[in-house]
């Protein structure tokens, strides 16, 4: 039991501690691809440290929502990290506290408060960005639903640990068309949800074009650090769900001994770095879509997910 608690803490510490470095590697690699030197991969840590040391300014016109939102945005990804298989193949404490739908709704809760807080201060760019994030996420939502329904048809459950064991055991069901289509649809919504390039440009500083960044415009000091860190963790959590549950469900610790856990940490880092390289390729070769083309992008991912569900229901893939 004590080992499980330790593993749970390790799980949270992994997401909390390593999420900035993944973003650092991502930014560095992007610059390297453009034949620049780029910031150090530790830059996100320095940013966070700097922001934590600074004073915070809060508009006197804002309400409690504005002050609470950074904490919610920070805590939600940690909750999700407790629900999903980050390092272990066997279910930990909170594994059955919520399924993938619950994880999605916890992430959506963070987004909801971030949007409210952006509207709260009366900064003209905040509500504009907030309404855009809402547009993206209500287009993402049906895809999430269909993906999870398909997953539950395949694995008989939406608990991420059970889904993970379903893909990991027979390599045969790994090649089903449903799985492949599902991966593609989920990858597209990971890009949209994390605000990566075909949908949103995370490194843009032009307020009129911002989608996801605009919600943090009004924050300073500690709150800004929390919003930033929450964003890093959200990306990491989404990558972990995609990689550990759907794409490469191998290499997680099967037994609760420290060596296996250490090996799992290493392998998960390698997997995430591989994903980061894929992200760099995408972000360097595609351009950001116009706002009204985002519906097409997410519409396509919806179609793909429904095709996945159909091919699961109608064709030979029935269990």
């Amino acid at each position, binding site marked *: 039991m004590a080992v499980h608690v330790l593993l749970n803490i390790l799980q949270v510490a992994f997401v909390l501690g390593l999420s900035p470095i993944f973003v650092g590697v991502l930014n560095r690699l992007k610059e390297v691809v453009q034949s620049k030197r780029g910031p150090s991969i530790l830059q996100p840590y320095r940013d966070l440290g700097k922001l934590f040391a600074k004073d915070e300014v809060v508009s006197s016109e804002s309400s409690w929502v504005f002050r609470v939102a950074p904490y919610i945005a920070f805590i939600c990804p940690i909750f999700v990290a407790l629900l999903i298989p980050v390092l272990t193949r066997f279910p930990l404490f909170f594994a059955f506290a919520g399924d993938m739908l619950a994880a999605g709704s916890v992430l959506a809760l963070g987004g909801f408060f971030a949007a409210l807080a952006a509207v709260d201060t009366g900064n003209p760019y905040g509500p504009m960005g907030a309404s855009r994030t809402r547009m993206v996420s209500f287009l993402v939502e049906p895809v999430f639903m269909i993906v999870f329904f398909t997953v539950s048809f395949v694995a008989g459950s939406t608990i991420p640990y059970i889904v993970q064991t379903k893909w990991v055991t027979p*390599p*045969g*069901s*790994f*090649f*089903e*068309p*449903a799985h*492949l*289509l599902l991966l*593609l649809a989920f990858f597209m919504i990971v890009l949209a949800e994390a605000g990566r390039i075909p949908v949103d440009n995370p490194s843009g500083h032009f307020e009129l074009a911002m989608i996801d960044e605009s919600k943090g415009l009004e924050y300073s000091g500690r709150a800004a650090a929390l919003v930033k860190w929450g964003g890093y963790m959200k990306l990491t959590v989404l990558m972990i769900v995609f990689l550990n549950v759907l794409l490469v469900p191998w290499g997680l610790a099967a037994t609760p001994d420290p060596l296996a856990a250490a090996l799992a940490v290493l392998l998960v880092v390698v997997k995430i770095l591989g994903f980061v390289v894929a992200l760099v390729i995408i972000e360097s070769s595609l351009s950001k879509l116009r706002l009204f083309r985002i*519906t*097409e992008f997410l*519409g*396509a991912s*919806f*179609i*793909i997910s*429904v*095709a*996945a569900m*159909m*091919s699961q*229901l*109608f*064709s*030979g*893939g029935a269990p």
Partner: protein
Amino acid sequence: MIGYPLNDLFGGLFLLNAFAMVATRQIRGCLRFFLLQSFCLIASALIIGLLTGVRELFFVAGINLLTKLIIIPWLLRRSVPREIYARREISLVLNVPLALLIALLIAVFSFFAGRILTAGTAAFSTNVPIGIAGLLIGAYTIAVRREAVPQLLGLLSMENGAFFLGIGFSPDLPLPLIAEVAAAFDTLIVVVPIAILTRNIHERSGTTLVGSLTTLKEERAP
């Protein structure tokens, strides 16, 4: 047994490419998706050939490799001006999400139809519905696109769908080889005049937008 899931995988990719051909704006992208779709067809024919030992399927794969992946792209590149491929179709008949939703309904219908068709046969249960879907979505692509080349590719992808459907039934009722050969070379005969016509129309009127061919070139010029 990895063959069956692998065949299913190529079936899924086949369907995905059919959807992509409805939605891609770039004409070059559309051509690429057509080539990928043809590749899925060839792969599926080879896999089913290996699984069932029906000899004709290897010929089907060979014929398709020759015509769809080598001759048709070569013909299209030679006969249609290069500038057309760089073009984007800005005004689709329907907007992309709506077009895709209708394509999805077609696919749902084909899955139902496929279920009825394959009942009580030894047919490959993924090939039949996906083949029907490829056939119908190809026809739908012709209706929904405005440029000549994507319409031609829609026609060709209908033919891809028909092949995909056909090889699904091959363990029960293998098609005579001559029919396959005839079908494959028919498409070549279709491609040549359409491509030459497209080229001529482009030279005459400066556009390949099918809807605007009723107006004169001088009228359209701003």
